[in-house]
């Protein structure tokens, strides 16, 4: 198993995609999507950020061509980060004093 070399052309395509997505996130943020649904502005911005981060991880950081072991370790780490956010928010948001909570 020799090292996979990602071509310069792929790097340029990924860079161009990241630029388009950056322009898109600024453009989307200029609209008041919160009138449609409260968290919509944040959801759009974070979705674009996750797509950008995924492109960087898969191509700039070569994870698409990495070993399964490396990939499993990365996914496990991101999973723990999601636990950090999700479990904490599940606690906060079910407290009676939380803004927007029914009680």
């Amino acid at each position, binding site marked *: 198993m020799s*090292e996979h070399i990602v071509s310069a052309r792929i790097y340029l395509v990924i860079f161009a995609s990241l630029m388009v997505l950056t322009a898109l996130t600024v453009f989307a943020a200029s609209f008041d999507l919160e009138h449609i649904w409260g968290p919509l502005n944040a959801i759009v911005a974070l979705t674009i950020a996750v797509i950008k981060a995924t492109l960087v991880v898969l191509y700039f950081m070569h994870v698409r061509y990495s070993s399964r072991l490396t990939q499993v*370790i990365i996914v496990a780490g991101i999973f723990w980060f999601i636990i950090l956010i999700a479990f904490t928010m599940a606690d906060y948001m079910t407290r009676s004093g939380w803004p927007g909570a029914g009680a």
Partner: protein
Amino acid sequence: MAESHAIHHHPALKHHFDNMEQQLEAGTIGMWVFLLTEIMFFGGLFLAYVIYRAVYPEGFAVASNTLDVRLGGFNTVVLILSSLTMAMAVYSAQTGNKKRLLLFLFLTLILGCVFLGVKVFEYRSKFEHHLFPAVGWYDWSHEPTHNPALASQARVFLWLYFAMTGLHALHMVVGAGMLVFLMFFAWRDKYSPEYHAPVELGGLYWHFVDIVWIFLFPLLYLLGFHLGKH
């Protein structure tokens, strides 16, 4: 027996690895484990942001509008461009082009410095407007037109802004030092298509710092952007 093996080994191969591929694989996993601890390091601040944003939506939107989207956007472009030049530096190392390796490492360093320069400019303007949430904080809650509750909420946002971008900028400074280190050893012909693990792993670090900014930019700068448009 040991000698017949040893003569075929690359000089950079450590004795506890079977071959160069295994050595690079181990290094890559080690680097990723470090980056995962970095995710949790920044993760605490991201968690604080998520909680306080949910509690203080108005104050956060108002405070977010004190940031300049043009400067933040410019820095986003600069940092993504620096990720491209870093990726090209790794490519140059893999293909054994020393001149290009040095050029791309240098370009990455310059772009990193541009980013930090813009950051210094932004921080200074925050200090001048008394928006640094500690020394010199201008308590605009006493202004008749301002809502005191909103001012203290805005202060939480600005604290998180300085903590998150400050920690990120610190990582950029470390990254710049790393680039100087890589340029020095590249210049000394230490890297070849067979051995360039430090360039590869340094690239992982640089791209990670880029990813952190990819999340910081929309969360900090774009949050109240649509409000300024009214």
